[in-house]
């Protein structure tokens, strides 16, 4: 009797299922951007093909058992892409893939089982794989430190930037236990209903004043022309536990207040400080408070769960949501002709007229090798091959004839039949890639399967990059600031509640400031000091 009798395992299941969810969400905001910088990322992928594997071709292929997080559509047994990868890298690749939703459960059990696979993927709450789990496993002596080895592998050194390597070093002993999986550099901005803009004869806003004007017009001037007052300017969404939606990829708006949504950026006075002390913090919240009071923002903006904002955009209930360069084309699979309805734009400019594109190292988890593995060199050689354009293309677009007809790496234009597209879904996905981007770029663009769509994508990205000033933000590896959720969980929750109370007008500015000064600043002083020291030490 499932309902009344919740066995412990069941509860734990859902708990960890949700972990994954949340981890996903947090990685979405923290780990998405890369140090490669906007313009560099367009450089063609290195074709310095597998030098490591070339020297091994005479050798008997080594068996590598890979433990990876792969979506359920992909068939693992007799998979032609996995076989092809084995051939190209001269290994015998075996993949074990627990379901993505409960990957962490199984991984914990496997790590405790004493019988470890050769190559283990970890994604974790940090988004770059170097999370508390990794620290724990390393501390318990389950993982091989790789610092002495990695320099021998040119593709690893080329494709994984110094910022990425720094971002995954253990906070306990400074060693490298995980090889980052580089990802596409996402440039967060906003997605707007272009048809509404055109109808109201407005243009996409670049400053806060323009933004307010557009938002007001979207909310009050009946942009969908249905004669009803049922639209809002913008909406936000986010994971519902542990963090307010207002910090979830809201770069497009916080940029106007010089307020980075990620740690690791200086405030306007040139000093590092915690977000709640930054000059833009209160003005940003106050702005949201005004939008809410004037009913310009979706009243549910503080409680929308992930994807709900996108659904509201697609239902023409709201006109603006956050998004990055592939959001518009990605939306096509939900709403046909998305690229004709919506457009993507850069973040807003600050009071100095600068639009900052804060870019953190772009990683999507990483790979770990068990302690004292006999195959360390073979595994690293495989990952080295995995960081080539050849490998990336194989996993992302599949095999010619089977999953596509033609592919042009310079334009990324792919021609494929519907049948081939369906085939690709069952034999590969980005989850299988050892590296999901080469120099910050993937082999293909989602739904970019016609020249017209690719042109739309490219034009919007170029325009956005032209407007924005890229700032490379280092990964913050200062434990106390990362662990506030476990050291003062009650106060973190209280702070979130106070922010919301202030935005909704339940408390006034004085009350809110009083909380910050009397409770929040003292409780976080220690963590802030450690963080500031860490940031200042980076420059040296």
């Amino acid at each position, binding site marked *: 009797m499932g*309902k*009344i009798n919740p066995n412990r395992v069941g*509860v734990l299941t859902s708990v960890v299922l949700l972990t994954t969810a949340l981890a996903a969400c947090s990685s979405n905001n923290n780990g998405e951007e890369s140090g490669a910088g906007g313009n560099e990322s367009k450089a063609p992928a290195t074709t310095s093909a597998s030098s490591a594997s070339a020297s091994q071709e005479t050798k008997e292929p080594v068996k590598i058992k890979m433990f990876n997080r792969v979506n359920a559509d992909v068939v693992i047994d007799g998979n032609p892409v996995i076989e092809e990868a084995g051939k190209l890298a001269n290994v015998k690749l075996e993949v074990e893939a627990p379901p993505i939703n409960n990957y962490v459960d199984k991984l914990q059990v496997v790590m*405790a089982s004493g019988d470890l696979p050769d190559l283990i993927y970890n994604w974790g709450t940090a988004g770059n794989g170097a999370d508390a789990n990794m620290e724990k496993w390393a501390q318990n002596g389950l993982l091989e430190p790789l610092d002495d080895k990695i320099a021998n592998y040119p593709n690893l050194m080329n494709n994984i930037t110094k910022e990425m390597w720094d971002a995954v070093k253990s906070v306990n002993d400074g060693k490298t236990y995980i090889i980052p999986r580089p990802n596409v550099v996402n440039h967060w901005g906003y997605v707007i209903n272009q048809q509404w803009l055109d109808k109201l004869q407005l243009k996409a806003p670049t400053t806060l004043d323009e933004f307010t004007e557009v938002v007001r017009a979207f909310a009050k001037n009946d942009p969908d022309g249905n004669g009803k007052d049922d639209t809002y300017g913008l909406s936000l969404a986010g994971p519902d536990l542990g963090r307010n939606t207002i910090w979830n990829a809201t770069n497009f708006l916080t940029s106007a207040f010089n307020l980075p949504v990620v740690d690791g950026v200086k405030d306007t006075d040139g000093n590092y400080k915690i977000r709640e002390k930054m000059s833009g913090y209160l003005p940003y919240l106050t702005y949201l408070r005004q939008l809410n009071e004037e009913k310009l923002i979706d009243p549910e903006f*503080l409680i929308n769960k992930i994807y709900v904002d996108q659904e509201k955009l697609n239902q023409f209930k709201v006109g603006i949501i956050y998004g990055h360069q592939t959001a518009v084309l990605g939306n096509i699979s939900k709403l046909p002709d998305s690229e004709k309805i919506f457009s993507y734009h850069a973040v807003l400019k600050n009071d100095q007229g600068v639009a900052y594109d804060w870019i953190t190292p772009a990683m999507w988890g990483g790979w770990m090798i068990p302690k004292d593995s006999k195959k360390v060199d073979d595994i690293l050689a495989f990952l080295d091959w995995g960081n080539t354009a050849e490998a990336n293309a194989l996993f992302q677009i599949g095999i010619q004839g089977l999953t596509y007809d033609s592919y042009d790496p310079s334009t990324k234009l792919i021609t494929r039949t519907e049948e081939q597209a369906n085939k690709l879904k069952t034999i590969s996905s980005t989850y299988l890639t050892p590296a999901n981007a080469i120099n910050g770029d993937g082999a293909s663009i989602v739904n970019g399967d016609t020249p017209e769509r690719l042109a739309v994508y490219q034009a919007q990205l170029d325009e956005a990059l032209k407007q924005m000033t890229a700032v490379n933000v280092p990964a913050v590896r200062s434990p106390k600031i990362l662990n506030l959720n*476990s050291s003062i969980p009650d106060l973190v929750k209280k702070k979130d509640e106070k922010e919301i109370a202030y935005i909704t007008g339940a408390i006034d500015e004085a009350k809110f400031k009083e909380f910050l000064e009397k409770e929040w600043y003292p409780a976080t002083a220690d963590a802030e000091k450690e963080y500031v020291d860490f940031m200042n030490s980076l420059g040296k």
Partner: protein
Amino acid sequence: MAKNLRSALRYVDKKKYLYIMLIPGVLYFLIFNYVPMYGVLIAFKDFNFNKGILGSAWIGFENFRYMFGLSDFYTVFWNSLILSFLKLLFGFPFPILLAIFLNEMRSRTYQRFTQTLIYLPHFISWVIIGGILVNFLSPTWGVLNIFLGQLGIDPIFFLADESYFRPIVVLSSIWKDSGWESIIYLAAIASVNTELYEAASMDGAGRLRRIWHITLPGIKSTIIVLLILRLGHIMNNGFEQIFVLQNQMNLGVSEVFETYAYRVGILGGRFSFGTTVGLFTSVIGLIFLLASNRIAKWMKEDGIW
């Protein structure tokens, strides 16, 4: 001593079939439940992946001290308890009434048909139900508020208003599961001796009197056993349901132990915290179960043993 042993053996011999029948079940619980039970020690240990559960270092009640020391521990405790209590108060009798009134329907075909409908929501996950509810209750686009608007009532932001959270949880769980839960009562009613009903209608007893004097007493022991078992889970609120209805604005009443364990244990990287919370809620549940069983016995009813 030997005499006692002999009389014990004689007793066992007399009941040997009963004892033999018990062997597989008892072995089953020993192997599948008791052998792995040493895992609860994690709550008292600093788990080390290399050393395993038994080899890890003891940390005593450190996890418990941390848990009781959190300033919102008591809020969470009350939230869990109040929500469970409300679910019990309104949710527990509902399936019983449903079963009784279904049973009173004259048309067998229609009875079967409605029975089949009411247990359908049980098969739709909370994720989907939650999505429907969120749409339905939305202050701007939700059907309920549009309807209230036509009556001249200002839109109500149901999911952001703490005072609506508990009613929503209670009503939605009745909606989703009371049909399913009524199955067991239907089985109990089917076991009531029909001759009693026949005798009652001869005496000219009305429908309500028959329900009161025959149906209810006939299923009383099932009700009591289910009530006791339910009290054993007083600290469990159903993670999925709470999770889909919870948001940052109703957190003050929606945070319960299951979501709290997730927030602190997994988000915060305190791995044994989940086990600690689980152990704590289990002990409370066990106390409730034993106490209610004792009360049932004291009232001369069949408890669970």
